[in-house]
């Protein structure tokens, strides 16, 4: 059942208020009953009020709780200064490993240095921290672009493609594009795919993306076979523009984020793919890595990531999942979307997940 938004907002408030309190009491309890064999895993969140991080936390606890580890957390509430104090506080309470979702990849460095000096292993969670001393656990954003392009090529291997990219001021756009081009460039060189338009979208704004796609369709006289949109918000704008030309479902369309409205479009056959990052899996991977590091073991599957300043950092980069019509069951089974919501309005030719 879908939680009503008002209820959900209230729940979010309750959780936001409850988390620091719970963290404090956890701290008090744990320092009283300090057991050598129960590792303490400390987590510094940057802004726990955002719904997303509750999913990550649940993923972490799904590993930590069965392992008998103690979970301690603090919320910086988007304040880089508070995050420094939070980490110092956590370290004072005692940590066997520290997971940091950094508000600011540079400003957090003094606290990281403090942890390293105390011999506490550090994990940079989801957002990079510019130091070779931390293990970076995140999704592979190059893979986001690559998987997106692969799914689109599988649906539409030739023809005229329009590229709807994110805000030109965000460097991550280049990373997504690099991934896309690993797949597309050979096909462009062969002449199978022609890029007929390539536009950035300020603020990733869905209504601007809609205008852009309207103009591209006008310019090309509807001779567009695929719209490669970088996220789900822009794919919603593109879908509206395609619908106005009765092209929705006939033109391949991509997105990213696993928005529930978009998953519903995929079930209806109106969109080709969305790239879904399972936050619970990321949390679980970070928690497992933290346990390994706390026990002095190497982290399995770690590679190397080059930070912004060029330092080589150990990294555990998870592959996101491309969700298409064929594997919609994955998001239902993960509890990301209820089946009724996924399949709402699906009538003719339902995908396997809706049967």
């Amino acid at each position, binding site marked *: 059942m879908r939680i009503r938004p008002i209820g959900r907002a209230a729940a979010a408030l309750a959780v936001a208020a409850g988390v620091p309190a719970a963290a404090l009491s956890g701290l008090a309890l744990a320092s009283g009953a300090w057991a050598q064999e129960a590792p303490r895993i400390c987590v510094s969140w940057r802004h726990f009020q955002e719904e997303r991080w509750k999913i990550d936390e649940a993923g972490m606890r799904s590993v930590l709780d069965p392992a008998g580890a103690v979970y301690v957390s603090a919320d910086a509430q988007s304040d880089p200064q508070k995050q420094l104090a939070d980490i110092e506080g956590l370290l004072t309470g005692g940590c066997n490993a520290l997971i940091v979702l950094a508000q600011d990849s540079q400003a957090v460095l003094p606290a990281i240095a403090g942890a390293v000096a105390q011999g506490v292993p550090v994990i940079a969670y989801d957002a990079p921290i510019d130091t070779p001393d931390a293990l970076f656990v995140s999704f592979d954003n190059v893979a986001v672009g690559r998987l997106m392009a692969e799914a689109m090529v599988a649906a539409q291997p030739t023809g005229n493609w329009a590229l709807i990219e994110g805000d*030109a001021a965000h460097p991550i756009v280049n990373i997504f594009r690099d991934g896309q081009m690993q797949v597309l460039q050979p096909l462009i060189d062969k002449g199978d795919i022609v890029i007929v338009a390539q536009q*950035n979208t*300020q603020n990733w704004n*869905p209504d601007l993306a809609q205008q852009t796609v309207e103009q591209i369709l*006008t310019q090309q006289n509807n001779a567009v076979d695929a719209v490669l949109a970088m996220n789900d918000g822009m794919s919603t704008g593109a879908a509206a523009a395609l619908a106005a030309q009765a092209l929705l479902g006939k033109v391949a369309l991509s997105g990213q984020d696993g928005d529930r409205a*978009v998953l519903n479009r995929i079930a209806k056959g109106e969109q080709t793919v969305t790239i879904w990052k399972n936050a619970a899996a990321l949390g679980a991977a970070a928690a497992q890595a933290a346990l390994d590091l706390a026990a002095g073991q190497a982290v399995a599957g770690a590679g190397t990531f080059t930070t912004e300043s060029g330092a080589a950092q150990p990294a555990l980069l998870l592959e996101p999942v491309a969700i298409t019509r064929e594997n919609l069951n994955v998001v239902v089974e993960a509890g990301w979307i209820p089946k009724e919501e996924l399949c709402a309005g699906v009538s003719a030719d339902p995908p396997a997940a809706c049967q």
Partner: protein
Amino acid sequence: MQVGADRPIGREAPAGFDTRLVGMLAILALVWAVLQMLTGGTFLSARNLYNLALQVTVVAILTTGMVLLIVARQIDLSVGSLLGFLSVAGALIQTELLAVDGAQTWWLTLLAMLAAGALIGASQGALVAYGNIPSFVVTLAGLLFFRNAAYFINMGETIAPLNATFQRLGGGLGGAIGERWSWLLCAAALAFVLWRTVSQRRQQERFRLAARPLWQDASLAALPAAGIVGFTLVMNSYAHPVTGLPMGIPVPVLLLIAVVAAMSVLARQRVFGRHVFAYGGNPEAARLAGVDARRLIVKLFALMGLLCGLAAAVISARLNAGASATGTMTELSVIAAAVIGGTSLAGGVGSVAGAVLGALFMQSLESGMILLGMPSPLQKMMLALVLVLAVWADHRARRVVVT
């Protein structure tokens, strides 16, 4: 004082020959001609003009309210955020409170969005008028508050699809009135232009004013008449992508026309509008003349909020989704349109028609540059330069008239 020096277009007699407006139309025509050449004939195609009409609607609706606010020496920076907030709220009302496929859903939602917009606007106005907080501060807070509220009420999740009838408010495949109704409306509009010209001539005779020669009145009426027929022709020559039948005037564009007409009358022919211009021209004198400035400001912000509700209905219906990022930075486009349309940020001067033309001018450039495949950062840089250039040229032109 600063009002008397130049001739504010908003205060002229209703049928006056507005040189400034005609000048803007000439520049717009020039820009369209250039874009038509550069795009190899695509820009002035029926389809692109149809797009353009739809794309300009939201900013144009909002700018009619922004003009009056700026004339009254106020500003509203919260309109873009309100678009996002009301879009998400409207989508939640349709999907959570009402049945998304219900027959009454569309108008109940629209009504709720208009009411919520007006209420929020009135509250902001009350903070300005009775709390004595500058409108820049109040609405800057509104900008931050409502953008985040848009996120918070549904935790950033996009809500789609929306009610099928509601979607018609946004244009799209089912959102135009068809050929016959378009021509009927066209005929009605032509009849109005004719009636107005005739009744003005009668009035001039009655009061023994120096009547204009007949040819002058005829040509004054011919310009809007040609515009009306041309517009209807273009909207009817865009064919439905599936049925091939003429689309006709899109519903949101009809809403825009109604808003522009109502707001022009309000600004020029109603006491409320006279008070707005009087207060903007000289607040002290207006107060001494008995204008209740506080109530005026609350009403103005409530009106702006109401327009936000309407614009949010159009933009979410067009997108077929309630998304929290909707309308990001739209406040800047709205203010830019008003300024290009000749609104003075010092207050007292501005016109609804000018601001709508300003919006059309900016949107023409933006849509044209996408057709040309220009990179988006370059597009924004161009728009910035055009904004400054337009205001500079406007000031130059006015100075020439005065001296």
